[in-house]
């Protein structure tokens, strides 16, 4: 089994061709998909993260009528893999789309600078 570290929380397992949580080794979703599809997803009000002491139309926090924080967790262990601040209803971003064939080729080369887990 060869897993390649893509982010601090995500590996790609080139044998199973899955996104894998690097914290608990739990499978998420096929690696040619958006890894967020394999996550547990929650919508949070910005005031749950950004404290604002003032009661005004403009605060020390994002406006919850304009945007929410979308959090993506590993569905197995709960680690937060990513989050996005999005206007209400805006499509989720497919932010990482690795060329898997090139990744395999790179791994099989004589020298590469990827971090691989056996």
């Amino acid at each position, binding site marked *: 089994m060869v897993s390649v570290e893509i*982010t601090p929380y995500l590996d790609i397992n080139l044998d199973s061709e899955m996104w894998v949580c690097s914290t608990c080794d739990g499978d998420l979703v096929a690696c040619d998909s958006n890894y967020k599809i394999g996550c547990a997803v929650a919508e949070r009000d910005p005031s749950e993260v*950004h404290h604002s002491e003032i009661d005004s139309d403009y605060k020390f926090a994002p*406006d919850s*009528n304009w945007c929410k924080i*979308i959090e993506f967790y590993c569905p197995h262990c709960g680690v937060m893999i*990513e*989050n996005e601040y999005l*206007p209400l209803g805006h499509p989720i971003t497919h932010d990482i789309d690795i060329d898997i064939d090139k990744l395999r080729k790179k791994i099989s080369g004589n020298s590469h600078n990827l971090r691989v887990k056996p």
Partner: protein
Amino acid sequence: MLDYAAIQVSMKGWMQTEPATKKELEYAAKIPPGMYEVYSNKLDVALDEARTVFVRTGVSSLLRSGDLVVGLHNAKGDLVTASCGTYIHAAIAQLPVKYIIDLHINGNSNVKVRPGDIFYTNEALVGGLHNPDQIAIMPIFFENELIAWSSAAVHQPETGAIEPGGMPQTATSRHDEGMRLTPIKIAENYEIRDDLMDMMVNFISRAPLMQEIDVRARCTATDKLRHRVLELAQEIGPEHLHGLFRKMIDAAESGARARISSWTDGVYKSVAFVDTTGKDETLLKVALSVHKKGDSIHLDFTGTSPECDGSYNTYGHGVAAFLATYLYPYVFYDLPVSTGTLVPFTFEVPDGSLLNAGPEKSVCNCVYLGRSVISLCFDAFTRLLYSTDPARAVAAPSAHSGGGSFKGTNSIGTKVADGFSFTLNTDGQGARHDKDGMNAHGFFYSPWGKTNNLEDFEEHGIFLGLTRRHFNDAHGFGKYRGGVGTQNVNVVLSGPVEVTSRGKGSRIPHDNGVFGGYASTSLPGISIIGSNALDLLKNGIDFPVSVREMVVDKSISGDYRFERINRSNRTLETGDIWITLSSGGGGFGDSLERDPADVLSDLNKRLISEWTAKNVYHVCIRDGVLDLNETSKLRTAELQSRLSRGTAYGTFSNTWSKQSPPIPVSTF
């Protein structure tokens, strides 16, 4: 006749290096061993010297802060190397030089390029980002042969626009922006022309002395570099100099391609949202897809909103400048600052979008729009880089800062128009893969710049600085937190004074965190009108000067106003308080993984509140002491809460997609 459309087409071609001539390649091949290393270094030293001269001869705040660039170009206009300052112009400094070559050397213009000339421009269509960017350009002749060009650019904090400060929030077209000069020959035979200087001073009548001194500073810097280049030409001959220039540009390109080749092929995306056009609230989108393949990168901005009717637009070449602002300090830190470095990059920027606006649009606040592009670069490139080079993976720096401008009369009766550059030059850096971002690390547009001294600011006699300090709880939280931004509180000592402030993000932030790190927060624009702060000071009565305490405590009397961070021009009177803020950088990684000892340290340094320690980091601190057992329980409970509130992606999408913001996102 000036043809805007043709200029915009030409600019796209001029972003790339000019093809090498046979002679240049021959000269490059003949460079003897050691000459490249020694003389490329000598050129860099000459540029650094010219930059120092530039800083010491000018007066305006951003110039004194070092937010500038001096460039050396080959005879065809390509940037060979530069001394920064700001990297903005490192990507686009060649554009006005090539414009001059195209028009006055290769074209039918009756203006000729001769030894001793200096050209001067601040027209963003032909280079620069917006008209505060004033650029001096000098041809360098050796024995009547044009061998090179020198350029010197810095942002001027006054342009004669409809509001003081050169970046009016209410601008809706180029006609609101004040002076816009296509390149004019301001000096002939090594002498600055009085008539053209008077013309500029007349345009910039809010700060005439500042304009004249800074024009001379730019010209002095270009001439200083010219002298040094001629000394080198004398020393090694012009052929070797041509060869050296070629080799430096080619080395920049091959170095960039080698670096890019080592990264992981794929597509990396990010989106950012802009909540203002300058004059109005709105919801604009900037979208970036980074396509990395082999040794080249394609940046596609498809999905970006149409140009807006305010001033938060940019011309097409601006995206290269914003990219360079990210690349040079973080990824290409060891490569030459040269046109060659950006040759592996291609761009798709939709015509008529915010990032490729038409010539009549106002672009004077493009740098605030550009902060979104830079944030996207941090986002997308960090995702690209982490798998092969995690040390280069960094969250976005602060992008909300409320810099601003003022116009008044100083203590000796001279008219002054200058900037509140402190919060700009003390932005927080984004968090890194193994450490927090640097607090108040500087201005990400100008990593080499520094903030001006409070004494420099106060010596106008217009404002008294009440505080310049870190601003707590505004940065992005995470395993590693973003660098903390700053708060700047000033009271008017001698009104009336006109003020304005700039920025964005009071509704929605966009200097994202990465890999589960949070974004920095939104910020309001705050002022206290009719305050009694000067009376309190006079009577020795203490009051809090930390903004969060100030607005809660309200021991200073007055009318507390909370607005958008970008506030249009208004007049303040003696005693009024004007506050500018910078938010801090984005976080990196899951905040539940932050070392509890670092949370306690942040609390003790007043960088975060008890609320944040408890609700974001889930750390238990009792009477200033960490309770690690309780912290472990709290964090385990939060992990369980996440699993309870998190739903499957499909279920979430069904509910989420039915919601909408109060203003729809502007799309084509």
